[in-house]
């Protein structure tokens, strides 16, 4: 009797194995894989709308040939790379520093963590709105504070040489808390007995950091770095609100070029070609990161 029930259970389970996974796979199939296939097809076509139906005409590799000559795309890739490197480097350093500090304090840890979480939960658009007001050359708080110290203010978002850096600062404000949170979780899960042994041996705080914390945190640091680097290609909301890619192409990022070419200018085929190249570059970065991580974990 009980074996009957058990075998019925197993037969039932093998069917439900598919049923339970099917909804998620359907979502990925219809909204990720199919659109990526469509994207590839669209990138070699010109597409027009005629009475609600898309009219496709073959364009060959014309869009891809145009890409390297497009000043918007060139600026987009150059700026995104610079943006990602600067922002993520600063986020890693500040985030790790803060995580080390918070992991050392006994009182107020929850309060600090709650406050530091705030930027992660705010809409990118609201963060853009906040900093647009703060950076305002006439009445923004940034220039007011500088003025109070007798320093000259700047047009932070309107000056070509400052605009990208100003956007980088906003990204640091937005995403350092996320880095902090992951690294703090990493620090909290480190085995404590090693530290006690070090204390008994009279190790200095610096030696502790250099020879215990850093080596043990290396995997977490590497994963966080790779993740932030790749995800920084997503930046869109803040740029949309703060600068719209300007002045000129000073803050043009890849996501924004795609949006402009595809939606604003209605060049759907060409916009898709930029997307394809972007995804290709990202795939390359992901493979490189995964490879590096795997090598690290094998030697460690």
């Amino acid at each position: 009797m009980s074996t009957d029930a058990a075998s019925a259970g197993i037969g039932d389970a093998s069917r439900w194995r598919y049923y339970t996974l099917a909804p998620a796979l359907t979502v990925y199939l219809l909204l990720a894989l199919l659109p990526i296939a469509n994207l590839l097809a669209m990138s070699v076509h010109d597409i027009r709308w005629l009475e609600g139906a898309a009219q496709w005409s073959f364009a060959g590799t014309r869009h891809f040939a145009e890409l390297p000559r497009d000043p918007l795309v060139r600026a987009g890739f150059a700026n995104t790379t610079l943006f990602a490197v600067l922002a993520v480097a600063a986020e890693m350093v500040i985030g790790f520093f803060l995580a080390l500090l918070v992991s050392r304090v006994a009182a107020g840890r929850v309060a600090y963590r709650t406050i530091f979480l705030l930027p992660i939960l705010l809409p990118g658009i609201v963060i853009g709105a906040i900093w647009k007001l703060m950076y305002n050359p006439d009445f923004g708080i940034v220039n007011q504070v500088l003025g109070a110290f007798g320093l000259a203010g700047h047009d932070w978002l309107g000056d070509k040489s400052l605009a990208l850096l100003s956007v980088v600062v906003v990204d640091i404000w937005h995403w350092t808390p996320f880095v902090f949170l992951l690294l703090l979780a990493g620090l909290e899960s480190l085995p404590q007995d090693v530290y006690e042994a070090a204390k008994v041996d009279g190790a200095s705080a610096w030696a502790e950091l250099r020879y215990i914390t850093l080596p043990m945190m290396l995997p977490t640091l590497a994963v966080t770095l790779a993740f932030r680097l790749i995800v920084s290609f997503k930046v869109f909301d803040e740029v949309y609100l703060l600068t719209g890619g300007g002045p000129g192409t000073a803050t043009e990022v890849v996501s924004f070029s795609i949006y402009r070419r595809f939606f604003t200018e209605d060049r759907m085929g060409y916009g898709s070609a930029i997307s394809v190249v972007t995804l290709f570059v990202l795939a390359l970065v992901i493979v490189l990161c995964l490879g590096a991580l795997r090598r690290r974990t094998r030697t460690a």
Partner: protein
Amino acid sequence: MAQRGQTIGVHLILVACAISVILPVAWIALAAFKTQISLLRGDLAFAPYFGHFDELLFSRTSDYAAHFANSLLVASLCTLLVLFISTLAAYSLARMRWPPWVPVLVLTGSLVFHMIPPITLTGPWYVMFRSIGWDSSYAALIATHVALHLPIGIAVMYVFVREIPQELEEAARLDGCTTPQMLSRIVFPLVKPGLAATGILVFVFSWNEFAVALNLTSSATATVPVAIAKFAQEYEIKHGVMAAGAVLSIIPAVLLLLFAQRHIVKGLTAGAGK
């Protein structure tokens, strides 16, 4: 003594950082209560003014209340769907004895999809939905938001489902429990903390999402971030109204942060780095 001085120093640095996180948010909250003139003069002391909220909520030029309702609808339905779909998938991958490559493939694919900038797929989504007559519909936006946030859901729920004691399931199987009974009586009740963590994150992220909503909605179906962006783009920027809209839009996130901080931390740390 040196120890004590060090602790105070650490707290000083942390308090300074906490202030630099709060100050910008407080600044925009104050801006929402300043008159346009007081704003443009950069006054620090001012009498609170409610005109921007009045214009935002009750004037004929603003549909903020309707956008707020749109955001609520999209984020709530998206959250429910992601919770349901991701818990089933997580259970399937963690416990249903797939050959090992299946969970690896699905989880890796899911993570890679999460890392793709949504704007690269918004184009094909737009063409697809417009071709089937779903352009500017709630359904289209909800569907894309479900896809965008499913990776977080699956990653977080996978961690929680794996914590269910295996013996419990084996005992239930021996008692003749079918899979749907197992799901409704054991899995869903036991992963409630996971559902809370996932639900909060997905709701907030869907509520905040801008790049896709901007391109897949019309003025009738636009969500709050799209509405706020409009204020910033008008010929004469309405700084005060934009600030008021921003302040109202972050109320859900701030409330969740204050009352569900633990869940958020769990969700964010479980969802990343996996």
